[in-house]
């Protein structure tokens, strides 16, 4: 991307734009969490029909938390993508940290969903009419694996010298 160099009116944007590793990671973690929530909604609620929309055993506070969380996920998806676009346009995105953040978000949400939503708030279970243990284990282990990948990527990103995508 050499567009900025060809435009004499705008000074080279690299000079003042330095990668923001923490912001890149946080923004992509937000996108990751919201994406995982969307996948959960689409795959397990809609396609497989494993989760129940509302299984009636949910306490009121769980219902309230669920409503808030669900809306926050929707808004998080939009906010995450627009913040990501902003990082790119300013040339402050650090791709390595962004990748790490994405996995941390994916795994973090999966684990949160598996423990807080399914077990603590008891919003719904993974599947009904089956022995839940293997499902719960698979669910939470998957979350841990994703978190682990994110952690490894984060450590690697921290060691490598900072490089940012050039601003557009």
């Amino acid at each position, binding site marked *: 991307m050499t567009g900025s160099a060809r435009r004499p009116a705008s000074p080279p944007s690299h000079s003042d734009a330095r990668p923001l590793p923490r912001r890149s990671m946080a923004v992509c973690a937000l996108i990751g969490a919201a994406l995982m929530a969307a996948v959960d909604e689409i795959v397990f609620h809609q396609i497989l029909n494993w989760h129940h929309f509302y299984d*009636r055993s949910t306490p009121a506070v769980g219902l309230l938390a669920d409503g*808030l969380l*669900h809306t926050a996920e929707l808004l998080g*998806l*939009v906010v995450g993508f627009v913040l990501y676009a902003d990082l790119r346009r300013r040339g402050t995105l650090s791709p390595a940290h962004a990748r790490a953040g994405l996995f941390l978000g994916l795994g973090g949400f999966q684990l949160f969903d598996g423990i807080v939503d399914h077990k603590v708030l008891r919003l719904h279970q993974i599947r009904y009419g089956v022995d839940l243990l293997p499902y719960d284990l698979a669910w939470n282990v998957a979350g841990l694996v994703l978190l682990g990948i994110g952690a490894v990527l984060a450590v690697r990103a921290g060691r490598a010298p900072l490089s940012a995508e050039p601003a557009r």
Partner: protein
Amino acid sequence: MTVEHLHSTGTGPGPAAVLAATAALSAAVGYLLAAARLRRRGDVWPRRRDACFVAGGVALAAALVTPPGGPFTAHMVRHLVVGMVAPLLLVLARPLTLVLRVPLPRPARRALLRVAHSRPAGWLVCPPLAALLDVGGLWLLYRTPLWAAVHERPLLDAAVHVHVFAAGLLFSFAVCRLDPVRRRWGLFSRGTALLGAGAAHAVLAKSFWAAPPLGTDVATADLRTGALLMYYGGDLVEIALAVVLAVQWYAAGGRALARDRRPRPSSPVRRSARVTGGYAQGTTREGVAQRPAEAGR
């Protein structure tokens, strides 16, 4: 109360529904005429605003006269279109800006400006208050005896529909903040109001899965279809509203970035006169002070 009673006006459009649908379509025609007039004069008025307004008007009219599905589902379709989809489309078309730009008789114009700049208008568009009026009204309707009363009295039914539409319009208006009114609330309060309203809407929709509105007997399948429709339909409109906010934020950031990157001339740069619909220019034809110091921040 039986299922058949549930929506007496839903079986065939009543005279009030036909009247309201006609009004919606007339408003759409009026908008098109006004926009055409602006364009003839040389104003830039994007076509997509025309498309939004016409889509909103048509959706409103269609929802009022032809509700599909079972009685509760039909009610929910109507609720979604009348209270959420149509208001958003209408607000995106910036109707107030348009009306203030077309040549109006002086007293009418002055009255309109007085209302738009009045203190109560400034408070009404306070996003949390608009959210409360909108979703709070829904909770009142469905979780109090109001729902049963509505089906006994057609006049009350009409009043509730008017409220659902007006409150939806107010909420979309407050969250999108596209038209000029006295107070310009910041992104934080608008985003928070959207979050709160969305959560209250989702909880209400989910609660229908287990319990119908107070004092009625709704077939389970109908109730559940209605609940799902309300939940996911509400999601779509919330995402659309969030996208409106996100695009505003992104565009404002882009303008700031462009200013920073531009070489500083000795005299202030004259902005292009092209009307993009934003409020970047100090004042416009409306004669409205577009930036009354963003006090809401």
